[in-house]
């Protein structure tokens, strides 16, 4: 039984012009398809690599492994306060330029120049080669021809993005209508950050699948609630308030009566004392008016909006004025690194710190269940015993994600002449 209004077409799936047939999941099991995705998707879209707060000063830098895009980048705030990125690679003989102890581990810091560990070549923050050890041993070496190889970089609402595609549209245009709808959200006020990382034994899209539908929540997470409460939740099931799709991006708007809950019996004793939990601290900090894109259905029971910015970046904005991000960084067709960061307005006192800790830890407990289920799914879909899976209307974003991936790959295989990929609602 429907509790919330659906579009006139009768379903979200049909509303967005998507097919309703079962979906073939070969895109999540095939090593060949993953190789195609690396070039067709990860080397052609804008990828979020961090936030400007990670670059607080001139000379602040961090590195980012982009295995799926076949590179690793070095992101830096230069002396003119501009955020720039380079392939993290020395122009002499290709050593990784910035790393510590383990070349595969990401690092960060502040410096005036970058010095290669191998033969000591130096580069300024603008990427210019400034020093060559025993320069007179080289043959007509013009240092101006050996600056660091730049990577296209742009910033949207404090989020730093890179793309390896020189022909990609400008970032703001790429973020589209859904991005525009949350411009002005005070991300910059929420600098209290907790980051978690996990290596997950599944295709990257399977974890996105798990986080763009809440159909699983009353069942998989049943043991997180009291028995009586979980029975109630299961009989009610899950329905979103609204979905939206624009180009390759999508969002789901959800109810969330848990901050604070209507009935205190619904939550654990510690949640009641600390006034916090899965949906965040119950007493939201004042952050002013929210941008117009949030809570698109205007429902009073609104709890959070989850955005998927293609391919692998999610932002979840919660009613009690905090947000979190997810990133899924593929490392093979059946493994990826999952990262999540939770951002709060910095706590004024130690109690607020504790409230936030409860939200963070609760979130982690749920994430652990989600992560483990993925390995179980990957294992079985790889058998190929069954290849097609029926997706319900609450799984509309999965359908759109997998179709978008197939479309990017098909477009890329279509030949060297590039056509701009627009997965519009009508197509």
């Amino acid at each position: 039984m429907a509790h919330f209004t659906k579009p006139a077409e009768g379903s979200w799936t049909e509303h967005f012009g998507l097919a309703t047939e079962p979906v073939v999941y070969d895109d999540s099991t095939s090593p060949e398809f993953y190789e195609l995705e690396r070039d067709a998707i990860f080397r052609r879209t804008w990828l979020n690599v961090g936030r400007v707060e990670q670059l607080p000063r001139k000379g602040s830098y961090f590195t980012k492994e982009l295995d799926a895009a076949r590179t690793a980048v070095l992101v830096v705030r230069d002396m003119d306060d501009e955020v720039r990125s380079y392939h993290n690679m020395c122009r002499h003989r290709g050593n990784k330029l910035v790393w510590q102890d383990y070349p595969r581990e990401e690092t960060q810091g502040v410096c005036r120049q970058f010095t290669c560990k191998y033969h000591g070549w130096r580069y300024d923050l603008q990427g210019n080669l400034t020093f060559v050890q025993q320069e007179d041993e080289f043959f007509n070496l013009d240092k101006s021809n050996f600056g660091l190889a730049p990577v296209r970089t742009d910033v949207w609402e404090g989020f730093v993005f890179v793309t390896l595609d020189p022909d990609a549209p400008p970032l703001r245009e790429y973020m589209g209508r859904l991005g525009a709808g949350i411009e002005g959200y005070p991300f910059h006020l929420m600098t209290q950050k907790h980051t978690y990382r996990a290596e997950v034994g599944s295709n990257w899209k399977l974890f996105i699948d798990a986080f763009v539908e809440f159909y699983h929540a009353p069942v998989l997470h049943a043991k997180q609630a009291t028995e009586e409460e979980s029975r109630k939740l299961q009989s009610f099931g899950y329905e979103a308030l609204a979905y939206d799709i624009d180009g390759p991006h999508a969002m789901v708007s959800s109810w969330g009566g848990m901050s604070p809950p209507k009935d205190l019996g619904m939550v654990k004793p510690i949640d009641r004392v600390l006034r916090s939990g899965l949906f965040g601290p119950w007493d939201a900090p004042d952050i002013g008016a929210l941008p117009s894109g949030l809570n698109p259905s205007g429902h009073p029971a609104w709890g959070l909006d989850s955005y998927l910015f293609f391919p692998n970046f999610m932002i979840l904005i919660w009613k009690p004025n905090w947000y979190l991000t997810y990133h899924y960084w593929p490392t093979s067709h059946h493994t990826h690194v999952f990262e999540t960061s939770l951002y709060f307005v910095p706590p004024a006192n130690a109690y607020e710190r504790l409230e936030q800790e409860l939200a963070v830890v609760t979130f982690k407990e749920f994430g652990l269940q989600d992560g483990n289920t993925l390995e179980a799914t990957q294992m079985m879909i790889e058998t190929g015993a069954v290849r097609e899976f029926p997706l319900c209307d609450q799984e509309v974003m999965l359908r759109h994600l997998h179709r978008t991936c197939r479309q990017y790959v098909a477009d890329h295989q279509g030949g060297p002449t590039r056509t701009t990929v627009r997965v519009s609602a009508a197509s």
Partner: protein
Amino acid sequence: MPILPQVFAELEPFADWVLPSERDRFAKRLASSMDELQAFYDAAFPRLEDGVEYLKGVPIEGIAEQDRNLLWLFSSLVTVSFPVEVWRQPRVPDSGASSIDVVVEPVP
């Protein structure tokens, strides 16, 4: 020198739960028996309401060592709350071998 503020002196026997990183708090939870988690919970939870009132008066900026220790002790109470209040086991149900590790966290 006591670890905790004077008014929470009765929790001194649980000072081994004063751990500044979520990674360590979680590891200690996994390494503990349910009886140990229950004993800690039974001692600390009844003092949480007082703890909330106390910590509300403690600005994060320039927090004193004993106050910070109290914050970490109650953070550990947060870490053990799901096992004690809901699951009756230290591990997250159905989480198998999966792990999610903290890589950035505020101090305090």
